[in-house]
């Protein structure tokens, strides 16, 4: 497949506006400004572009939810909080071709009639925040941002807003809270951000890669985009492969390619000639897949059918030498650290799983542990929490326990059990504070 999103990778000075313009950059924006905002949304809808941040929601539909009769202002947010373990595609786009993102933001803002856009970028990405700011400045000087863009009467300001280290801020409503200067606590939905978003106004939140696709759709047309991949799973997709492969990195491939092809051909197989044991298809929040499930197609629908999800396209490959109990513990540590603490099933559950798994790794597994893990995960699943983090830790942990159960049971067999502590029951004899007794 020809490179689309990564076409500038490897070019000298690929980040500059001159290189971008030479490759036909900002043609999509020019074309968009000759159309009505609704026609732009329609074009993106027809391309069947689905959100690349993880949920796979149709982008055109998302824009369509932003009310047209609202007095405004409206906001567009570019989500560059890339922090799902195994995901590093947005950084690649920004590093090599940031103007794609800027142009995508301009077109999306025009489509939803927003005059202010923010790029929320994770705090650690200091270098990439700077690259984006430089690109925005270049675009402003070139007349592609600012007042009366390209003489079309459309105004747009774009600002880069740095986060400060919190995975949860990649969740769109937590991101909005953080943008507003608060702790990153996800909001209850509804109302959805399209209606009540940033600063209480209608807002669309789109991932970097999603927005980077938009200029190409506008310049080359929806039918071209829809011809790549499979029906309902269209377009090029960036797959980030890490872990035990010979050539880790970001690969641009059409949706619908199999995981086997990605791992064996593009990444040239598992490191050291070892065998594949398992892989995460879309970041660690997706249920794990075994080596036997490597022929699944890498797209939104095929992954869902296989009981997992494509997520952000972050593929983590694990070879036969890894101990799945340890993997599970490492995953649990991430979520226990990143839970925002609002909802009990997630705050307590992730911590609890981490404690149990750490104990198992240290050789003190108890016979009831695997079932306890599954029970905790069950209590935190199916959207019981405000945001999807409750599911995000429960799905990988329960899938690892289910698919590699014998490894967990083996851990218990060889464990030297800790003496079962008997918790003392403390009878309360003093006054009860606050009750005036």
């Amino acid at each position: 497949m020809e490179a689309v999103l990564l076409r500038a990778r490897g070019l000298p000075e690929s980040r500059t506006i001159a290189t971008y313009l030479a490759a036909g950059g900002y043609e999509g924006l020019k074309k968009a400004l000759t159309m009505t905002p609704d026609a732009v949304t329609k074009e993106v809808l027809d391309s069947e572009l689905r959100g690349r941040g993880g949920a796979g929601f149709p982008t055109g539909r998302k824009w369509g939810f932003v009310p047209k009769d609202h007095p405004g202002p409206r906001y567009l947010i570019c989500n560059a909080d890339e922090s799902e373990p195994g995901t590093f595609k947005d950084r690649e786009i920004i590093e090599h071709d940031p103007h794609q993102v800027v142009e995508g933001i301009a077109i999306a803002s025009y489509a939803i009639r927003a005059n202010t856009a923010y790029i929320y970028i994770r705090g650690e990405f200091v270098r990439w925040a700077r690259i984006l700011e430089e690109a925005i400045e270049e675009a402003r000087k070139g007349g592609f941002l600012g007042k009366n863009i390209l003489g079309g009467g459309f105004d747009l300001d774009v600002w880069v807003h740095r986060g400060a280290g919190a995975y949860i801020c990649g969740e769109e409503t937590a991101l909005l809270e953080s943008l507003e200067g608060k702790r990153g606590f996800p909001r209850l939905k509804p109302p959805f951000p399209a209606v009540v978003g940033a600063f209480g106004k209608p807002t669309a939140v789109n991932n970097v890669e999603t927005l980077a696709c938009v200029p190409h759709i506008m310049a080359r047309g929806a039918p071209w985009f829809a011809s790549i991949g499979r029906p309902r799973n269209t377009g090029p997709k960036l797959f980030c492969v890490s872990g035990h492969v010979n050539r880790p990195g970001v690969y641009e491939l059409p949706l619908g390619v199999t995981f086997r092809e990605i791992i064996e051909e593009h990444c040239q197989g598992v490191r050291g000639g070892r065998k594949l044991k398992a892989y995460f298809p879309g970041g660690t929040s997706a249920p794990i897949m075994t080596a036997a499930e490597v022929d699944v197609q890498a797209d939104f629908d095929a992954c869902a059918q296989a009981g997992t999800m494509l997520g952000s396209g972050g593929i983590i490959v694990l070879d036969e030498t890894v101990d799945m109990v340890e993997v599970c513990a490492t995953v649990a540590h991430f979520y226990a650290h990143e839970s925002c603490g609002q909802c009990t099933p997630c705050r307590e559950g992730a911590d609890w799983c981490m404690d149990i798994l750490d104990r198992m790794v240290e050789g003190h597994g108890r016979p009831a542990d695997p079932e306890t893990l599954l029970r905790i995960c069950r209590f935190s699943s199916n959207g019981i929490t405000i945001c999807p983090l409750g599911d995000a830790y429960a799905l990988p942990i329960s899938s690892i326990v289910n698919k590699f159960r014998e490894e967990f049971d083996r851990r218990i067999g060889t464990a030297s059990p800790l003496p079962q502590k008997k918790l003392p029951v403390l009878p309360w004899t003093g006054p009860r504070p606050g009750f005036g007794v």
Partner: protein
Amino acid sequence: MSTRPIVAASPDSIAVVTLDATMEERITELLRRYPTTRAALLPMLWLCQERYGWISPGVMRAVASRLGESPAFVEGVVSFYTMYHTRPPARYVLQVCTTLSCAYCGGRELVEHLKGRLGIGFGEKTPDGEFQLMAVQCLGACGDAPVVQINDDYYENLDVTSLDKVLDELAGRR
């Protein structure tokens, strides 16, 4: 790569903070970007951390009063995020990624090596105030595992030898 060292202000010197004209100018520029003053909180904390090296209670009070927020609200925000230093950091903060891809591609060996070389554990500083070790979660550079972020810069595809070289260079630069 030349990583800039953090110069942390002494606790006494920023027990009470007055925002000077340079800071005020940048704050005014920040406030123009957002429809509410509160939204400028995170960027303003970044400004302060750049200037003073860390966010002391005095800095929080100054920020709160400038934005018309309560110090408690500001502290609540500061403590929610992991990247604001609430104690004076070392000159170089080594943030080692401990998430899956890094952990399984050499990250755990780096951690063991760093603990041995520096003689400190996670969250601790070397006695000379040069290095501080921190375990962090995914830095979003998994394809170049293992990754260590030192202050603002990413160091990727590391092994014990290349990391030693980086540390030698940083330690030698005074």
